């Protein structure tokens, strides 16, 4: 890299951030001890998806040595208010359960201790009695009248419903030549940043104020919600972000309830608290993208013109409507036409609460789901009309000369050329050759498919778009909302060094580098001569509601503020230099670290000397100049107005464009998908840094592909989460990523002084759809459900019903079997031949001493009354060993013939309930056939962490039980041999 570039912006300048990160010198939140006397917090979380809290006893935990204190929901409710919501609905959202838990992972109590180890020990000593309630994770069932109500004050699980119409959708559909529709499900997944949530919260007296250091990403509109919950003025809640954040992708927006929770605990306990979320907590209790159960309809004319769209969205928001939800269903709303000219659009948005983790920002925020509807229904239309999928898109694209384009639902698309992007993608993919390859593969009996998707990428959000969740009347009553302020400061200190403050809280997006490039261009310096501070301190930074890192706002909005501040500094320096050099200010240029006279390079002053003068000799400055060099710009993109009465809103500042094309071959023998071609073409406006842009494109692609192929946060039918570790939640890794061909073209944005557009979501929004379209093309069906796991695709390729991932079909036969079927829980059964008569077996089966000696891991077992046993059992599943208190009742006893066992068990690691049927049949010759079947539900940590093992462990335990039982039968009968006993073998 040369010392002087004509322009740094647009180059492939390597990142300034890297050196600290590569050498272990970068500081993240868990590396910080910003105050002395910190105690470490651990959070007890609900193992139940839905239950009333009957009682909480923290006395044993309180007594544990090293424990500073335990805080329950009731105590928190005394010191904070419910966290305000973006919609008007009578839900009291506290960051901790008060009297009811509504999802597995919901905080129930907080322990503070000397260290995290002791805090976690204490969690196990907290005794809670729950009264479990029916639960569901399914949005459709949750919205039906049959599901248990989560929030009694609401009286329904449907917490939001609004409809919107633009143009005349009814006539469009009535007069259309063809209408196609898709009912679709979108899975729940999350971007799972490598660094989890972390914070240090401190409450101080005199004056009463909170300080929270964290890796929170914003938006800082949530600061207002936090002050509301904590009941303090804005300047009494100081938020400080860490210098580095280990990824976020939107997820770290949703840590704000934890910030409130730990702040409240700090007040109750009187000490600063550090809480670092662990991975299991993150996977069950942080935040995810929304899963949806939606319907989309598209109306076409015979020549392939898209004339109408109808979206019916049913969004699973999780157990609470955590702000800024329901924004995920409104983020794309103003651009509901996608890349197309269609004017007639109907949207029906319903939000349902279920017993799942609340949803929030996640890369693409609402985009993946939106395009899954729009871009799949475009393919369905193409198929119905016999038009090539590329051609049907081409026919409907907004023309390049139509920009700026006012979309029917209010977005103003700044610039674009969608057909050029499509053509480039088809060229890069060699579309015609690809289609021939498909023909040949199909002729050879193979499954081959091509899929594509086109999308715009709204960036730099209008903070008011979420108010679409309110009716125009409600909005009018609440007062106006609009805007999305970007702020930045550029300063030069007395030593002449340049510092930029961006309050943009990046988590790896290279903001320091790009900001330095922008300022270097303005001041004639090199990027390495400019230091950039990206963190926020709400007491000392110039920040506003929109500050933070989300909605691709850095390159769409923040860079504009940086450039404007840099220009102000440059202007001031030019004025001072002009006076010193006795020329007109217009004749000064800032180049190579100097302010010099244009065309007379020897007539120059070092920039640092000119800058220093503003501090060291302010009275010598030109009269019209203020002293100092500290220029802050607060800019509001003027197009970000309030929503109008027709529910139209200019939702974003810039609209990038992505066109993705995927081709795949499916091996019907295994269900394996090979992506043989993937092309992604991007219009991000003017590129600020090629290396950073390229990194965002690759990263967004990996997220989209992960969602398409592997990643799903699975809940069982009882709403117990099954994806508690990175061995269960399968993040995409290097070997699973096919070669990506990237194409670029640029339509500079007129909405940004640098011509840049926001980018970063990219293919995270489109890859799921492009891949699903390719799979649909290969399999000849639009009945596609992500993620495209092996068993699902195998079943579809072979005309079978598919069973949920991780499930094994029950097989009928002798040995023990298991089935983690869609019906939920564990079911199974088997037959065992025993060497005793039914009478002998019966007697032994009901004998407490026998049971105690043969039940695996049984520590104690006692009979309580005629038909009830109480036992303590220690069992290890997937490396986590725990003791459970079990209660077993015998019902429907028919002596010597059959008995039903109904039981439940609970322990610190989880709980279970189930029932089994045991029946005996004489085989003659003093032998008996014992048949058993069981159905069980398991929840809590053991289910989230060990679900892969549960079936196997159950089988193993049952096997152990009957081996022991048979042994016991024999020893009662013909005195089993010593060696046989020792080795525990039947023969």
């Amino acid at each position, binding site marked *: 890299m040369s010392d002087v570039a004509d322009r740094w912006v647009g180059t492939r300048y390597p990142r300034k951030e890297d050196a600290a990160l590569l050498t272990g010198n970068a500081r993240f939140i*868990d590396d910080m001890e910003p105050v002395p006397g910190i105690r470490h917090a651990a959070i007890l979380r609900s193992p139940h998806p839905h239950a009333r809290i009957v009682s909480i006893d923290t006395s044993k935990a309180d007594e544990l040595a090293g424990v500073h204190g335990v805080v329950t929901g009731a105590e928190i409710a005394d010191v904070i208010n419910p966290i305000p919501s973006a919609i008007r609905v009578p839900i009291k959202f506290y960051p901790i359960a008060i009297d009811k838990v509504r999802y597995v992972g919901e905080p129930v109590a907080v322990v503070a201790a000397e260290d995290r180890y002791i805090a976690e020990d204490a969690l196990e000593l907290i005794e809670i009695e729950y009264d479990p309630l029916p639960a569901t994770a399914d949005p459709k069932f949750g919205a039906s009248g049959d599901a248990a109500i989560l929030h009694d004050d609401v009286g329904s699980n449907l917490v939001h419903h609004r409809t919107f119409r633009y143009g005349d959708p009814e006539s469009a559909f009535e007069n259309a030549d063809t209408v196609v529709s898709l009912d679709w499900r979108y899975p729940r997944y999350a971007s799972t940043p*490598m660094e989890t949530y972390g914070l240090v919260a401190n409450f101080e007296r005199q004056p009463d104020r909170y300080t929270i250091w964290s890796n929170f990403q914003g938006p800082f509109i949530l600061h207002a919600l936090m002050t509301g919950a904590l009941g303090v003025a804005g300047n009494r809640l100081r938020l400080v972000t860490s210098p580095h954040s280990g990824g976020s992708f939107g997820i770290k927006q949703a840590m704000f309830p934890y910030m409130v929770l730990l702040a409240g605990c700090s007040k109750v306990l009187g000490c600063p608290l550090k809480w670092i979320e662990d991975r299991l907590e993150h996977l069950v209790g942080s935040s995810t993208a929304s899963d949806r159960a939606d319907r989309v309809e598209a109306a076409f004319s015979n020549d392939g013109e898209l004339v109408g769209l109808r979206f019916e969205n049913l969004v699973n928001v999780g157990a609470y409507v955590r702000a800024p939800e329901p924004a995920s269903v409104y983020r794309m709303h103003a651009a509901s036409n996608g890349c197309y000219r269609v004017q007639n659009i109907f949207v029906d948005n319903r939000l349902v609460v279920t017993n799942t983790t609340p949803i929030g920002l996640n890369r693409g925020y609402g985009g993946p789901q939106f395009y899954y509807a729009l871009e799949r229904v475009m393919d369905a239309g193409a198929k119905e009309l016999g038009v090539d999928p590329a051609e049907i898109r081409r026919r409907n694209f907004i023309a390049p000369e139509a920009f700026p384009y006012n979309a029917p639902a209010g977005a103003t698309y700044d610039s674009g050329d969608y057909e050029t992007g499509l053509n480039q993608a088809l060229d890069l993919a060699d579309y015609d050759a690809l289609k021939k390859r498909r023909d040949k593969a199909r002729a050879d009996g193979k499954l081959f498919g091509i899929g594509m998707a086109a999308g715009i990428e709204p960036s730099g959000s209008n903070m008011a778009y979420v108010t679409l969740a309110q009716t125009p009347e409600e909005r009018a009553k609440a007062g106006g909302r609009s805007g999305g302020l970007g702020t930045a400061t550029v300063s030069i200190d007395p030593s002449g060094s340049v510092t930029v403050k961006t309050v943009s809280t990046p*988590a790896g997006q290279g903001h320091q580098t790009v900001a330095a490039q922008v300022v270097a261009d303005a001041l004639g310096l090199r990027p390495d001569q400019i230091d950039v501070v990206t963190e926020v301190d709400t007491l000392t930074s110039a920040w506003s509601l929109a500050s933070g890192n989300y909605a691709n706002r850095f390159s769409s909005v923040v860079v504009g503020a940086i450039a404007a501040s840099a220009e102000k500094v440059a202007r001031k320096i030019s004025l001072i230099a002009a006076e010193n050099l006795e020329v007109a200010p217009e004749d000064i240029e800032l180049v190579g670290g100097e302010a010099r006279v244009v065309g007379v390079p020897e007539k120059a002053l070092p920039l640092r000397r000119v800058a220093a003068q503003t501090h060291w000799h302010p009275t010598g400055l030109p009269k019209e100049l203020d002293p100092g060099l500290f220029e802050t710009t607060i800019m509001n993109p003027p197009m970000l107005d309030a929503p109008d009465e027709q529910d139209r809103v200019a939702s974003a500042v810039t609209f990038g464009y992505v066109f993705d094309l995927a081709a795949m071959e499916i091996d019907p023998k295994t269900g394996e998908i090979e992506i043989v071609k993937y092309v992604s073409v991007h219009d991000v406006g003017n590129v600020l840094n090629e290396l950073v842009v390229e990194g965002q494109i690759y990263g967004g692609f990996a997220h989209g592909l992960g969602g398409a192929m592997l990643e799903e946060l699975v809940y069982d039918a009882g709403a117990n989460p099954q994806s508690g570790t990175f061995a269960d939640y399968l993040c995409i890794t290097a070997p699973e990523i096919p070669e990506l061909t990237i194409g670029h073209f640029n339509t500079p944005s007129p909405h940004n002084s640098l011509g840049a557009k926001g980018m970063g979501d990219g293919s995270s929004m489109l890859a799921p759809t492009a891949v699903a379209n390719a799979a649909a093309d290969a399999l000849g069906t639009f009945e596609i459900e992500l993620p495209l796991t092996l068993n699902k695709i195998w079943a579809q390729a072979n005309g079978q019903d598919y069973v949920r991932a991780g499930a094994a079909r029950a097989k009928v036969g002798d040995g023990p079997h298991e089935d983690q079927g869609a019906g939920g829980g564990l079911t199974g059964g088997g037959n065992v031949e025993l060497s005793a008569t039914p009478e002998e077996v019966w007697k032994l089966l009901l004998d407490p001493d026998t049971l105690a000696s043969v039940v695996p891991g049984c520590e104690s077992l006692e009979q309580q009354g005629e038909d009830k046993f109480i036992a303590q059992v220690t069992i290890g599943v997937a490396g986590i060993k725990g003791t459970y208190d079990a209660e077993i009742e015998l019902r429907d006893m028919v002596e010597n013939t059959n008995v039903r066992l109904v039981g439940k068990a609970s322990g610190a690691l989880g709980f279970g309930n189930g029932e089994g049927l045991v029946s005996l049949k004489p085989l003659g010759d003093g032998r008996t056939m014992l048949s058993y079947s069981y159905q069980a539900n398991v929840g809590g940590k053991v289910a989230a962490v060990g679900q892969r093992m549960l079936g196997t462990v159950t089988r193993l335990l049952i096997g152990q039980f009957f081996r022991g039982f048979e042994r016991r039968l024999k020893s009662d009968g013909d005195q089993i041999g010593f060696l046989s006993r020792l080795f525990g073998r039947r023969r």
Partner: protein
Amino acid sequence: MLRVKPDQKQRIELTVNGRKYSGYATPRLLLTDFLRHELGLYGTHVGCEHGVCGACTIVIDGAATRSCLRYAVQCDGLELRTVEGLAVEDGALNDLQKAFNENGALQCGFCTAGILMSVTRFLEENPKPTRKEVTEMLSGHICRCTGYEQIIRAILQASGQ
């Protein structure tokens, strides 16, 4: 054999990046927590604490190891290498670190230390790996930012390819 009570701390002495360190650990203290919070070596990061993500990988007695799956007491007297020891003597980036910087092989940088340590050992054993070998080796690490392509390029560049 030395027996200590569960909450009893004992002195652990080990070598990290050629320098002697000592600190106190209870028997259950994870090596990651010991390195970070007892020795102040914050460069090693914790991503999952169950041995899947690879962020905490360091080199222990010559083997790339998940430090979240080791107890500190198991490492008494051992030789450790962590990310803090990679830079060349004057603190400048080594060839691998330079290649990461030039290729955009890191974004948030949280997983990077573990990847660098794995790759360091990998290239010591296999100085000219194929792209496929690099990709397979990386399967032991989760990176959520980069999509891996730029990491693969950086490793190939560092190996002179």
